[in-house]
């Protein structure tokens, strides 16, 4: 940017002043760049995409330009919006159940090493077996489609919460544990006042991963369920559009899914920040 004025300033002028001014300018530039840069790069990418589609006359059933995607988004909105709501419902439902299940199991595991040793393998098995191979079975065993979808999304999402929270519950400071022991704290008090707060940053880290995974779980399960009609989600719309070679609508639905994922991540990041800003190293702002 300004290597020219920098060398111009660093002549006989008082050294500190120059350095301070340079620092202030760098901070100003950085403040703008943080917002401007991603926006500019995004705009450039979209422009490049549009240019490529027009210049090489790519047929819209292979790669639609961004104009066609936006067009599809607007035109198909009455159909995409309810589908988005269905997917969102399953995603958030799965996230809630994963949170309750993950934290609940972690607390249970933390109560006794024996329980943990006995049941942790099942959690691992559920995690490492791809949901896409279990899903067909689940839809056979579970009559309700919504419940089946929820179960699939839950299986994908709960493991990071479980494993992170278990780690967090076990990483409370040893001297603090001694202190609780010294004052005759009950098991419940130790959990409530020491182990759960100590586990909070770990849990929140797991929750942010689980947020993205529950969306993925919901989508994958919908693909497997593959039924249409009323109450079908975005994944089914994508599947349907692909059968009809309606590529712009596929792009529009994918765009919605990505945006949903980004919003979930942003909200969970905000929650994390609000809960940890007073005390945890990861959220504390440092001067300098």
């Amino acid at each position, binding site marked *: 940017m300004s290597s020219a004025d920098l060398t111009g300033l660093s002549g006989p002028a008082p050294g500190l002043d120059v350095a301070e001014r340079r620092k202030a300018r760098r901070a100003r530039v950085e403040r703008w760049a943080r917002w401007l840069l991603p926006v500019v790069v995004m705009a450039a990418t979209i422009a490049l995409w549009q240019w490529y589609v027009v210049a090489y006359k790519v047929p819209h059933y292979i790669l639609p330009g961004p104009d066609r995607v936006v067009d599809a988004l607007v035109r198909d909105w009455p159909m995409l919006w309810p589908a988005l709501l269905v997917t969102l419902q399953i995603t958030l439902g799965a996230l809630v159940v994963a949170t309750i299940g993950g934290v609940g199991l972690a607390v249970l595991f933390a109560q006794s090493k024996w329980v943990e040793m006995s049941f942790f393998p099942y959690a691992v098995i559920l995690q490492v077996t791809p949901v896409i191979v279990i899903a067909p079975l689940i839809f056979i065993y579970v009559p309700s489609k919504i419940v089946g979808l929820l179960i699939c999304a839950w299986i994908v999402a709960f493991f990071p919460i479980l494993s992170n929270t278990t780690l967090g519950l076990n990483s409370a*400071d040893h*001297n*603090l544990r*001694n*202190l*609780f*022991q*010294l*004052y*005759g*704290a009950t098991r419940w*008090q130790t959990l409530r*006042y*020491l182990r759960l*707060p*100590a586990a*909070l940053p770990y849990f929140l880290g797991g929750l942010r991963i689980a947020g993205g995974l529950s969306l993925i779980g919901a989508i994958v399960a919908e693909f497997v369920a593959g039924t249409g009609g009323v109450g079908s989600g975005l994944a089914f719309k994508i599947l349907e559009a692909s059968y009809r070679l309606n590529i712009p609508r596929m792009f529009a639905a994918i765009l919605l899914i990505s945006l949903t994922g980004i919003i979930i991540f942003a909200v969970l990041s905000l929650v994390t920040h609000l809960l940890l800003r*007073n*005390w*945890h190293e990861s959220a*504390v702002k440092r001067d300098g």
Partner: protein
Amino acid sequence: MSAASSDGAPRGMASRPLSETPPIVSLQGITKSFSNATVALRNLSLDIGAGEFVSLLGPSGCGKSTALRLIAGLSSPTNGRIVWPGEAPGQGDHELGFVFQEPTLMPWASVFANVHLPLRLKGRSVAAARDEVMDALDMVGLAGFADSYPRELSGGMKMRVSIARALVTRPKLLLMDEPFAALDEITRFKLNNDILRLWETLDWTVIFVTHSVFESVYLSNRIVVMAARPGRVVADLAVDAPYPRTEEFRTSHLYSDYCRQASEALQATLNEEERAE
């Protein structure tokens, strides 16, 4: 003799007068060995009289921290027993406070909540305990920081919070495990004076683990010198200097005499160790 190692270890300059009142806690023939076969303490007998300020002084590995943890009930002796003569048999609570080497505060809780913790664990609500917590904070000069979080405080202030937490239950016995070892000297001197002031006003008994000869002489009226491998008591010195002790004491002849005595006792244990190797 209120302290002796009965396995024939040198008694050194044992010069403490017999205490008339029954001890607040009495360690009788304590042996503690760990699973990796180290003997942290061998046949340790020690009576702590009510109102004493006792320093356990020794090199690292002499088991002084282990002794403190045993008294606190954080671990149990392999052999021997710990008796609390002033208490009814079966009383679970020993009315003691513990200050660790680190401040050991809950980072997620405010200063107030940290000091409130011991009372909360006894079922006292914030409203019911507010006065006591604020009193305790006031005593360490941190009443204005009740709503701060630990990370906002300096190392010395965190230690004060830790002390306030230990004294909020009004314990009879305060156990301190090298509490000021990680602090700079200026802060340490200041906290030394604070502890002495609190000890004089609150009618405490203090057991203070340290590896600093100067700190132990400045603070205590009794120094128990310990040796390592296996951990045992080698000397029991009385420091007969009047309280309140101030900076004046720190520069007096009396102080340096006692420091020399304690140093010699400590040195003897180290020499002995070298000979053994």
